[in-house]
């Protein structure tokens, strides 16, 4: 069984087995009913773990949709005498449709705007519900049916409990499958930075919508089983405090962990059920608990457990190595690899397995975990040996045939202009780049270099002008569409996925899942294929020995190299690099220069850099921007000699 399969089956099995046992043994007692109640909430939080925890799409929509599921089932049951078990899937479908409509509007926003817009949802919902008598108004809606209809109370209790456990197990299974699939990797990157994700081919608008709908459907399912087991829908199910309670459950348990989300729901409900004092003062308890958990570890209980396991592992793997870690802000290989954000807290990511085995065997890896953290990282890490075969390796993805050399340029910018509210940032930029070669883009701060890169990459639309790739107008194409056309880029700040290995980070750009829907990943995942392709690129770049290392344990230079590898892995036709040398020492820049020259022989590279020496050394042609205008376009010798350039930039 593949590792991915194991990681999704294990937690599901755990939930299923434990749940069934508890229901059978305690089903008719108070403990059992608390468990069932928390299982209802856990269905909701499992979805939240995927949506909010991993993908950072903070939307406050879950309590509302829990209400949709609950009230819907209640209405269908009391007015149409529909059995709860039939009404449930109907409501889930209804919720999906509603979420699709609402989500297509809401997910246009990102980050804080998304959060604020959806913050209104609970207010709207509670205002509507408490005033609508059809839904029982402020009193609530009762149900006549039960989740497992039976004349015997004990049978209905146990039956209802078992069905709830089944729902929970399915929820956990679906969530885990998604997270361990290749789309899961897409979601990770989406959570790190939406722009980076788009530049790596992730169809961000679609994924955001899918996540929104997913979260809402899970919530509706949770609401439905809630109604079926509690037989009553209180108005407080949809108010803001309910939403916040759900968030607290998620964060306490561990926002990035599906099992954590389940545990969080259990913890809160049991606390409420355990003592009357707690139940009455639940607000105080939740407030204190959330604050304390956030202070100790923002990843919640799952994070605490993971760190604990990792410490244990690294302690066993080599006390000497681990001891050298203490001062370092980064974490050792083993520690960070196991705290890798994985779908379960029990088992760990592939990275951990191979890393710890490397750590334990000790010998295989020339660089021991401990050495990573020392103040002066070992440069034997980095061997910039480029296999000549790199240039001619078969491409990872289909791409259009390159244009015949010489005549038609690969990239053309014609008359590009960009204004931001009256301020002109780019003015009449005309650039042509051939299919191969290394080209520099320089200029003082604020001259528009990054903006031009953004225009070419697609994250910023120009106010005027056109961008042509192989003669075709791509000006209106989105970043992920440009990625498919062969444009790949890096950003100024390092945006790697913390807690994942180098291999996974590079695999982000090798994913073949972009066109697929999120639901398909329940069945099959092609993550291993992407990983293989990433491994190939890493080998060609001489970086294979660090492929199992967790990225935050790397030096800045190596992190930059990982980003370069990620940009290079899909064999792009145009590579846009944004200040790759920033923060590097002189010696590191020499190595970078060698790398860049090799890249220039494989593809077309446009390099934005402040280090004029570096640019002059490696570029065939250099463009200089000042005040949004192109003031120089020529070779390196002319560049050094040009009076325009010298007066503009502080002397070489």
């Amino acid at each position: 069984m593949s590792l991915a399969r194991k990681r999704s089956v294990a937690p599901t099995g755990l939930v299923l087995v434990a749940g069934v046992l508890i229901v059978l043994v305690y089903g008719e007692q108070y403990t059992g009913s608390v468990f069932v109640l928390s299982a209802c909430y856990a269905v909701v939080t499992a979805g939240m773990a995927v949506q909010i925890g991993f993908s950072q799409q903070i939307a406050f929509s879950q309590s509302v949709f829990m209400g949709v599921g609950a009230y819907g089932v209640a209405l269908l049951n009391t007015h149409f005498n529909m059995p709860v078990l039939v009404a449930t899937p109907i409501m889930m479908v209804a919720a999906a449709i509603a979420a699709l409509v609402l989500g297509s509007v809401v997910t246009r926003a990102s980050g804080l705007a998304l959060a604020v817009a959806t913050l209104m949802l609970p207010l709207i919902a509670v205002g509507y519900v408490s005033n609508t008598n059809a839904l029982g108004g402020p009193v609530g809606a009762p149900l006549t049916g039960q989740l497992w209809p039976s004349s015997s109370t004990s049978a209905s209790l146990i039956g209802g409990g078992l069905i709830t456990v089944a729902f929970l197990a399915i929820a956990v299974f679906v969530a885990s499958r998604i997270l361990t699939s290749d789309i899961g990797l897409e979601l990770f990157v989406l959570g790190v930075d939406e722009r980076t994700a788009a530049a790596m081919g992730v169809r961000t608008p679609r994924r955001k919508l899918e996540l929104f709908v997913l979260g809402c459907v899970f919530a509706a399912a949770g609401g439905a089983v809630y109604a079926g087991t509690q037989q009553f829908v209180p108005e407080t199910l949809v108010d803001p405090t309910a939403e916040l309670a759900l968030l607290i459950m998620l964060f306490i348990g561990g926002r990035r962990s599906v099992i954590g989300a389940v545990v969080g729901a259990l913890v809160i409900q049991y606390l409420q059920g355990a003592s009357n004092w707690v139940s009455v003062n639940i607000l105080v308890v939740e407030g204190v608990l959330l604050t304390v958990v956030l202070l100790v570890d923002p990843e919640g209980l799952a994070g605490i457990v993971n760190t604990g396991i990792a410490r244990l592992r690294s302690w066993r793997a080599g006390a000497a190595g681990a001891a050298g870690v203490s001062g370092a802000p980064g974490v050792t290989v083993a520690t960070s690899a196991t705290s890798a954000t994985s779908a379960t807290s029990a088992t760990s990511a592939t990275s951990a397995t191979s890393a710890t085995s490397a750590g334990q065997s000790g010998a295989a890896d020339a660089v021991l975990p401990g050495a990573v953290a020392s103040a002066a990282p070992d440069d034997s890490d980095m061997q910039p040996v480029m296999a000549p075969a790199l240039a001619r390796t078969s491409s990872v993805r289909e791409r259009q045939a390159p244009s015949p050399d010489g005549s038609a340029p690969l990239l053309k910018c014609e008359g590009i202009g960009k204004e931001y509210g009256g301020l002109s940032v780019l003015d009449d930029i005309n650039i042509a780049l051939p299919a191969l070669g290394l080209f520099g883009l320089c200029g003082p701060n604020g001259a528009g270099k990054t903006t031009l890169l953004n225009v070419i990459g697609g994250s910023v639309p120009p106010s005027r002008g056109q961008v042509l790739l192989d003669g075709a107008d791509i000006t209106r194409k989105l970043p992920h569409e440009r990625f498919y056309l062969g444009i790949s880029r890096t950003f100024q700040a390092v945006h790697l996925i913390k807690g994942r290995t180098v291999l996974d980070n590079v695999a982000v750009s090798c994913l073949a899942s972009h066109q697929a829907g999120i639901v398909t990943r329940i069945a099959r995942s092609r993550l291993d294929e992407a990983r293989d392709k990433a491994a190939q690129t890493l080998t060609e770049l001489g970086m294979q020995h660090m492929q199992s290392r967790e990225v935050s344990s790397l030096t800045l230079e190596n992190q930059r190299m990982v980003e370069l590898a990620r940009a290079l892995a899909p064999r792009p036709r145009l590579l846009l690099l944004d200040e790759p040398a920033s923060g590097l020492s002189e010696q590191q820049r020499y190595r970078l220069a060698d790398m860049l020259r090799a890249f220039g022989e494989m593809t077309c590279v446009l390099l934005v850099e402040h280090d004029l020496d570096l640019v002059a050394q490696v570029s065939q042609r250099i463009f200089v921007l000042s005040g949004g205008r192109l003031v120089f376009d020529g070779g390196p010798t002319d560049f050094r000699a040009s009076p325009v350039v010298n007066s503009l930039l502080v002397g070489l």
Partner: protein
Amino acid sequence: MKFGNLVIAGLVTGSIYAVFAVCVAVWYRVSNILNLAVGDFAMVGALGVDNLYRVKGLPLPVAIITTLAVVAVFAYAYDRVVLRIAQDGPRRMEGIVVTFFFTFALSFFIDGVAKMLFGTDVHAAPALWNGESLTWASLHFERAGLLVLACAIIIGGAFWVYIRYTLGGKALEACGENAVGARIAGIDTRRYRWLIFMGTAVIAAIFGIVESPITGYTYLSGATISLTGFLAAAYGGFRKPGRALVAGLFIGILEALLGGYVNAEYGDTILYALLAAAVLAWPRGLGFESAVSG
């Protein structure tokens, strides 16, 4: 004159939203945290004074001062203990988690404590200015409402003078504009952070005391006020107090008009739906930074 009276009522609540929105915006600029507990401090002010005065029998001025002092001390303690660890410690936390959730939790906590101390009934601080509502040109002015407006103008005016005409006020602005630049000039950004947090809490409590006679508060009232003030601040992207102020007034008036003309029961619901739609329609125009990476 229904319209006029509605506008006046809307101005009263709007001025509270406006003040709270300004508090949220100013503090966010300095700390990068959104204070979602603003309304809860107001609630504590109202219910605390009511409890001390009515239940414990303390003279009114003593009750007010004690409540404000407790609020101030608590706010100071919260910043020094919780926020210090979150922001100034070795593991400085960033991102939307810190921005939102710490004060979410605080809001819960305060509500829960209020429930413990004051119960679940509706209460209000005693009216500070007793009497019939005043009438002028067929417009009705509730005395408490006038008091609220007066407080808003005084406090707002004092703050404006402080910002514009004192070096301390300019230093406060500097903290919000560029924390690095502020440190270089010798400005203690952390001190301003807790000063503003304390100030926000006390100001909120004052408004709670003054406004509660109009509507009455329960221990959960704080949440809605927090949210609306927070929303008004959102309309300046959380960074522009001026816009937040205007937005607060606007929302207050809109709320009153919707309740009076459209539908008393669903008025608030429609209001929130409109506000949400506005955020979705013009996120850039309203000043939201896009994608926050957590």
